[in-house]
């Protein structure tokens, strides 16, 4: 299947489509760049379907199914919004991670200092290991 990496900078109107596997660096935000590189490595693991990395100004998307980017993005956003609501209701403090298990695949979502991460993987992928590698 075709694998595409897309980088969106500043606004959604500027879209850079990059077929190479390397991460497009964002030199203005070292945290974003580090996470980008980290996720690019994780993406190579067996069972990892792809990821979305999004800050207030940039986004990096690497998914097996590029035609479903919008669906993945909406899903990720909804997961983090709903999780925030639930965490506030039960006072579990800042969200460290959210694991969404589906019948086919699962997703690990995080918000690290305003940078939103969603990693999609097969059900048998080791999400605990991935979480350790991404967590600050």
């Amino acid at each position, binding site marked *: 299947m075709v694998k595409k990496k897309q980088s969106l900078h500043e606004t959604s109107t500027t879209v850079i489509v990059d077929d190479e596997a390397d991460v497009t660096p964002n030199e203005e935000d070292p945290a974003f760049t580090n996470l980008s590189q980290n996720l690019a490595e994780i993406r190579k693991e067996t069972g990892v379907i792809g990821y979305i990395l999004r800050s207030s100004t940039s986004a990096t998307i690497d998914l097996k199914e590029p035609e479903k980017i919008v669906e993945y993005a909406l*899903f990720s956003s909804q997961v983090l919004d*709903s999780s925030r609501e639930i965490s506030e209701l039960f006072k579990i403090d800042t969200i460290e*991670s959210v694991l969404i298990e*589906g019948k086919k695949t699962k997703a690990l979502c995080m918000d690290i200092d305003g940078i939103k991460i969603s990693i999609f993987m097969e059900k048998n*992928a080791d999400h605990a290991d991935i979480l350790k590698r991404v967590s600050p």
Partner: protein
Amino acid sequence: MNNEVYSFALKSTLQEIQNICPDVSNSFIFKDGKILAKDETTPEKDINHTIDAFDSITEKADLIGGLEAVTIQGANGRVNIACMNDFYLTTVSSKEADEKYVNTLTRILIPIVIRLIEKIHPALPEDGTFTTVEPEPVEDEVAEEVAEDSESDLPAEETAPTEDEEERFAPEVDPEPLLPEAPVTQLIVENLGGLLVPSDTVRIDNEVIAQWNDLYGDKKLHEVNLETLSGKTTRCKFKPMKNSKQTGKGVIGIPEKIQLTLETSKGELVMVKPIVE
């Protein structure tokens, strides 16, 4: 009468879970957006907000094949929403709680209670309401059974059904009915390999086997039915886990051959049901 019996039994079970695991601060069960049972501490308003938030995720979850579970890990605690049969169980636990212990406990207890209630009330309509009226003592007995983990009694015999009920349940009454319905337990697949490992035998969590033994007493249990979420089934022998570190973690060691038969792999869930001889 509405689903009072369901609610009462499930509520008692939730309370028992919180008694056993004091780290579980809130728990409730919902289905199709409606609250079926809740503990005494969680306000209904909070539950409804949770259901709304959960439904928002569910609406977009086709992407991952439909939602099975959500675990939100916060700095001070954890919220877990897990699908069991058609029910969603939500537990809120402190950061110190042993996640695997809580999950194992809830994934065993709640399905057993649901099955018990369904056995007592097989004609529960889809709208979640009952059409018959149960006398109060029946509810008390159901509650007592749940509190005692519904170990070895046959609920259908204890409920002293009315004549109408006797007629309705007549086809289901077994002439030798002293065995409870075999519980279905969801376990996580682990690889089982080695030179001396028989390819037709799975290794099951000791706690699960202990529970079956409690349930069936002297009956010999040698085999189980395994079923994956995709519906693949097989029957095989079982033995307890050798590795004591895996006890209580809700895992099942499955040899590669059986994994291939079931089209499953490490980390996936299988439903395990003992075959009672």
